[in-house]
């Protein structure tokens, strides 16, 4: 960082306490702030330079002192100087910024995943364990957390200023962001992309808990069904298991262990199966037909909400063997607890 | 400042009333006929080529190549650019250049989205 840690601490704390600076509450923050201070320095120096030039010339060469101007054509050397030096500074900025960008957007492999669905005008967080939160997010301190986010309607943007992270939440596409919170406490969540009337009401709080507290919170607030379990019910009720039964005679491919594997498509392309791919395979199956299968899978566009899709994705992700599928088949045949499909525009409403 | 523009000054090399001007050239009707013929033939070839199964992406490439050729012919002869000043040629070039910028830079985004996570 170039600055001594003590000095850094002092600077940041002091700025923070005078309410001119956000808290540094994630592992990313110091990196972002370092670049920020560098850029501030650049601005101040550039500003001073321009001011000093303007003021000294204005004073020295004002009309009273210097009644007759000396005409000067220009100076290639000088001009080259102030072309190259700013260029060099800007290029440094570019490289530094790019490195920071990938630090912010490249999640570590061991990050725990939480799903976030944005819709006009609320944030829904869904933990794999089935904990649902609205306009709130509980995370443990000291552990990398990855958010897989999608919007149900328009562009939103998920921002936690104190963590210095932000990412657009896009309709029709999963985006991810990650952070590792350092200090327990509560911090703002903002929707920063203008998204209609209640845009400024689309705010929430992220609560960083100590690992122990987090453990406690997870246990207390579970709804009893994990996302995968919800997905399992959906898988049965939507009739997926009619084709994806995992048996040799099935019309659809076996989905066990498909997550993270490489599939070969009929057009010869190879694709990596990730969240985005699973989602797309359900909504637009004919756009990437797995080799060896006919494009018979119907589209589920408009029939499943984004939450439902997340459940399905989470379910398929966790399918390591066909055991669960076969189980589902039996429940669906016995037609016991036919789970209801979460559909759009259900009961949740926003409180203004 | 009150000077009169005289014949000579109008031809002074530093007179910039019309530095980029091109001679007014009249294209002969015969040449138009050739161009016309070429365009019709081009059309026939595109239609024909479309019904032939060519390997790879050759079909659209050929179609576009013919369309471009036809467009260039129209621009050069029907629109007289061949006989126009450098300025007009440059202007036409600038238009297509900007169009290419729009397309390539945007496609850069769409294509590289598939290249992987980062």
């Amino acid at each position, binding site marked *: 960082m170039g600055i001594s840690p003590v000095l850094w601490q002092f600077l940041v704390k002091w700025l923070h306490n005078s309410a001119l600076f956000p808290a540094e509450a994630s592992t990313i923050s110091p990196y972002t702030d370092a670049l920020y201070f560098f850029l501030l320095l650049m601005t101040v120096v550039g500003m001073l330079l321009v001011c000093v030039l303007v003021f000294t010339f204005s004073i020295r060469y004002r009309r009273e002192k210097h009644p007759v101007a000396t005409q000067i054509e220009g100076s290639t050397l000088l001009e080259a100087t102030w072309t190259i030096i700013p260029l060099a500074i800007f290029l440094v900025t570019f490289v530094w910024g790019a490195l920071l960008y990938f630090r912010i957007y490249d999640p570590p492999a061991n990050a725990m995943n939480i799903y976030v669905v944005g819709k006009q005008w609320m944030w829904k967080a869904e933990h794999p364990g089935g904990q649902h939160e609205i306009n709130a997010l509980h995370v443990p301190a000291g552990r990398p957390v990855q958010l897989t986010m999608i919007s149900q309607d328009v562009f939103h943007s998920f921002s936690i200023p104190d963590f210095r992270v932000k990412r657009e939440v896009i309709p029709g596409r999963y985006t991810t962001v990650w952070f590792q919170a350092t200090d327990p406490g509560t911090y703002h969540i903002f929707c920063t992309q203008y998204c209609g009337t209640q845009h400024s009401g689309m705010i929430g709080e992220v609560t960083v808990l100590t690992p122990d507290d987090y453990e406690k919170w997870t246990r207390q607030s579970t709804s009893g069904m994990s996302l995968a379990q919800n997905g399992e019910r959906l898988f049965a009720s939507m009739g997926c298991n009619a084709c994806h039964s995992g048996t040799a005679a099935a019309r659809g491919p076996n989905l066990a262990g498909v997550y993270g594997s490489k599939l070969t498509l009929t057009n010869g392309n190879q694709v990596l199966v990730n969240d985005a791919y699973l989602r797309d395979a359900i909504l*637009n*199956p*004919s*756009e990437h037909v797995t080799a060896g299968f006919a*494009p018979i899978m*119907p*589209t589920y*566009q408009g029939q499943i909400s984004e939450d439902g899709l997340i459940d399905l994705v989470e379910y398929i992700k966790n399918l390591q063997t066909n055991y669960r599928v076969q189980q589902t088949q039996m429940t669906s045949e016995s037609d016991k607890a036919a789970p209801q499909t979460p559909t759009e525009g259900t009961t949740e409403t926003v409180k203004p | 400042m009150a000077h*009169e*523009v005289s*014949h000579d000054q*109008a*031809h002074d090399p530093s007179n910039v*009333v*019309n530095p980029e*001007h091109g001679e007014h050239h*009249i*294209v*002969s*009707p015969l040449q*138009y*006929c050739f*161009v*016309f013929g070429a*365009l*019709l033939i081009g*059309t026939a070839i*595109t*239609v024909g080529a*479309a*019904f*032939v*199964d060519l390997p790879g992406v050759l*079909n*659209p490439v050929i*179609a*576009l190549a013919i*369309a471009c050729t*036809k*467009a260039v012919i*129209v*621009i050069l002869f*029907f*629109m*007289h650019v061949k006989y*126009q*000043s450098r*300025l*007009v040629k440059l*202007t*036409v070039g600038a*238009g*297509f250049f*900007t*169009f290419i910028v*729009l*397309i390539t830079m*945007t*496609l850069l985004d*769409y294509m590289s989205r598939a290249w992987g996570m980062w």
Partner: protein
Amino acid sequence: MANTVAHTNPLDKVDHLEKLMPHESIINEEGEHVVLPQHRHHFETEEQQREAGSFGMWLFLLTEIMFFGGMFFAYLLYRNWYYPAFVVSSNQLNVGMGAANTAILITSGFFMALGVWAAEVRKKNLLVLMLILTTVFGCAFLGVKYFEYKEKYELHHIPGSSFSTAMFTNPGAYHLKEEPLAPDMAEKTQIFFFLYFAMTGMHALHMIIGIVLLFWLTWRAHKGAFSSGYVAPIENFGLYWHFVDIVWLFLFPLLYLINRHPVH
């Protein structure tokens, strides 16, 4: 550049500004003193005015390139994303009509070019004839387009609430030799037709504007406005008309001929 400016006395000019403004004296190649009514006061020479006009027209065409360019890009993008849908919907377009229209438009452009020539060599009647032929072929193009649009209307291929993908999900029922599309892909045919209508519609709009202008030009040509060597309006309109042709030269292969291979 044989034309020379012969200014009247500057002081004179200040006093009789209005009187002098519309006309300027010009000495033509034969040394005669002619007054060209079209010469605007703020141009030094007729030549300057002509070149300014044609340069201005070219700049306007630049904006047209970029205007259509946006749509061409949208087309390029979605064609790559939804290739199967684009193929089948493109196959529903009538290549015969499209090709005929291409020929018609080229012919129209050819007559326009001849018209410019006729104006340049000051053949008034020929010019009028050429302009009329240009108009006729332009109208013929629009006529053919009308029938194409009508067919699309009848097949429910006009994007919007009445759009139907039945033909693409179940081509057999419509005696088509296409492979059936999966329903999700079939939905995307609507994007093709949207772009088809947006692009050809925008093109047709330019044709209509052009034809209106043609009427006006023909009338003026008939009155003899372009028989004395003043051809700028004809030339500049010619540029516009050829540009509209060029747009079609790209629209035709891109929209009609995406994939016409005989179905195996």
